[in-house]
């Protein structure tokens, strides 16, 4: 976690202007290193499946609302992400193996 914090803060050199220590916030959210270590990530899944890290498609999705989605809306988001990932995979495949 500390590495991630430093990485993000280095992007805009904000370490001196923003909260220098967020450990109390992380604790309040339950985001401790022990908690993170207990949660398997997509990366773990990729490693378990034997896929190299480079082939794991990473993404950031934005709903434009900036608010917590209901269960139904969350399902829509998941379907959107699945559609986008499939589309991107097809486009990547075409780039790797261009047709005649």
């Amino acid at each position: 976690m500390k590495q991630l914090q430093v990485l993000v803060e280095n992007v805009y050199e904000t370490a001196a202007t923003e909260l220098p220590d967020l450990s109390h916030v992380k604790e309040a959210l339950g985001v401790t290193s022990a908690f993170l270590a207990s949660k398997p990530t997509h990366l773990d899944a990729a490693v378990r499946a034997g896929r190299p890290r480079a082939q794991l498609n990473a993404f950031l999705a934005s709903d434009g609302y900036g608010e917590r989605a209901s269960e139904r809306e969350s399902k829509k988001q998941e379907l959107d992400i699945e559609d986008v990932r499939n589309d991107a995979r097809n486009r990547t495949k075409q780039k790797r193996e261009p047709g005649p």
Partner: protein
Amino acid sequence: MMPVIERSRSASLVPDRLLLEQFRLTIDGFNVRSQSLNDLGRLCDELEIEVVQMPLRRLHGVALEDDGYKYLYINSRLSGPEKVIAGFHEYCHLTSHSLEMSILKSTGGLWNLQKYERQAQIIGTVALMPDPALSGLSIEEVMQEFGVSRQIAEFRAGLAR
């Protein structure tokens, strides 16, 4: 009508100003004139980012990297102004953020992911609504002039100027 609030200088706004300055230096006319989807297309061509418009159910946009190829998806069902905001929002993710961070989203409430979203939304809204075009406009006038929701107009008005 209430005029757009001009926030005073404070330490909390320093990161916003740094972010805007970074994009002003790299994008021609950023925060000077309203950017368009054509502008976004040119920027993405330079960085070999493929821009794709496709209908989505809820998401406005997705920034995605697959096997070294970068993609910027925009929901084709959005209005013109919303597409510009979504497009530059995702452009900010692709050029300034580590997409690998998204794998931590399932842990919930991770502070730096929220920070990414705020930064990207700043870039998206300023791309469409530059400072000079907002001068003296009320929230209602911003909504009418740029065709955006009240939520977006208020977010933009709340940024450092």
